[in-house]
């Protein structure tokens, strides 16, 4: 974490409507060295009975991460690049506070390890200036990692949004979701 080639001009852009549910990202995620063969990305079917919609969810790396704030063991920390790191293995007590408090439903409690694990944006790769595994394999570019200029060129009719409304709570994140042009926020509730 000390010597790093993290590119601060690179950002993560997610467009759930482009997800085709191929789960290539799941396979690629398990290749990430920081996860130890566990896939951290979530690919869900949404209302499977009536729609073929799938959704993909990476850690949104909140500016003010609730997961870290509710952790009783101080096991979760946000680094200087705004990446919310996975639980410190020495500290995590497997209480699942972070799993239940995350507004995006991201952290996973690995019962067999009695520990929480989550996406840390492939820190082994991004800290070396590379793209996260999931973004490199996504065939439909539902997951895209690149510069803002690149995404603006590729998606002229969309706007990256990183503000989310959950009732009374406004959450801002490092990761963006692609929304209709001109959008400023995504209201979940």
């Amino acid at each position, binding site marked *: 974490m000390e010597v790093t080639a993290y590119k601060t001009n690179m950002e993560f852009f997610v467009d759930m409507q482009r997800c085709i549910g191929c789960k290539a990202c799941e396979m690629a995620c398990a290749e990430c060295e920081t996860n*130890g063969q566990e896939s951290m990305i979530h690919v869900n079917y*949404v209302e499977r009975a009536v729609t073929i919609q799938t959704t993909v969810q990476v850690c949104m790396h909140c500016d003010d991460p609730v997961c870290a704030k509710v952790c009783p063991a101080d096991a979760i920390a946000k680094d200087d690049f705004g990446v919310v790191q996975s639980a410190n293995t020495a500290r995590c007590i497997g209480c699942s506070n972070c799993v239940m408090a995350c507004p995006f439903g991201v952290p996973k409690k690995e019962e067999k390890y009695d520990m929480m694990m989550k996406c840390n944006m492939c820190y082994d790769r991004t800290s070396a200036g590379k793209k996260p595994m999931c973004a490199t394999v996504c065939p439909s570019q539902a997951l895209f990692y690149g510069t803002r200029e690149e995404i603006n060129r590729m998606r002229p009719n969309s706007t990256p949004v990183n503000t989310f409304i959950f*009732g009374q709570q406004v959450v801002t994140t490092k990761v963006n979701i692609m929304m209709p042009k001109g959008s400023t926020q995504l209201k979940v509730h």
Partner: protein
Amino acid sequence: MQFSLNRKAALIAFFVTLACVVISFYGSRKLQNFDPALIAYLFGTLFALFGGVYRYCVWLQRPPTWMYFKRTWQFVFTGSFFTHAWFMTVDAVKNLLFQRFIYPRGKKRWLAHFMLASGCMAAFAITIPLTLGWINFTLDPGTALDPGATNLYYANFFGFRVMGFKLGSPLAFLIFHALTWCSWAVIAGAVIFLVRRLTNAGLIASQTFEGDLLPLILLIIISVTGLGLNFSYAFMKGIAYDFMSVTHAISVILFLVWIPFGKFFHIIQRPAQIGAHIYKKEGQKKGMAVCPYTKQAFTTQLHVDDLKTVTKQVGFDFTLEDGTSHLDYSPEGKRDLLALAHLKARQEGGSFFG
């Protein structure tokens, strides 16, 4: 980073340290059994105690930590105390003594941690009471004066005789070399971890020198110099004893002073895992929370209710317009709701893509 003294924690830490000094004064029979050669270790130990209690108290004041601490003791002292005490004992043996939870993460990793942890714990159990003068050894005057008799040695705790053993016996060999066995265990464990940290790409990316490598290096230095002391007088006629003794003292005192602030604090934090287990077990008895979206039970209702309180205490409010909360939804439910909200926004925007 701004530092502000937490008065409550400082007061508790001061009184605990004071109590330790008083216990040690009388426990060493008014310093009669105190070994002055260990004076530097004594101050290191007292600092570690003060710092450890201070940080523990600061840590407990964090809303989520306090919630678990409070709930754990509420559960233990309400209902069947002995059932909880038994559960905690079994859990402590399994997860604190044998660190069973590490085994599924890797057999070699567990073995390394078990050697490291048991070596450190045994060394603490021996050296801390010795440093504080709680334990001392005395030679039986009767056998000491008789040239034909095998000398009898006594181990005393707080000045009370606990056990006796003959010098030169296998038991004496095991007891006098107890720290040697600890050192070998710590070295083996620390070297395995060090190799892992220097070769595993994931760890290389996420570790820090002071947070992850330095603790291992420090433990190796402590153990090697400790072994060196033994080797010096046993095999080297005392050569380099002074050097070993000074480097050992410096590294141990650094270790003691660092316990409250660095990686080693996880030793003090780990018992909280037992609290988390009791919390889950008791919560299940009270009933599970069902996600309004997936209609599946996902955690205990107690957990959801407590999290609503804790999130508000730490500055988040997930209350929805209808009075329910976003926290009532399971992780899967939350992901689906986000996807549906996105779908709706795209539909309203007139195009699914763009």
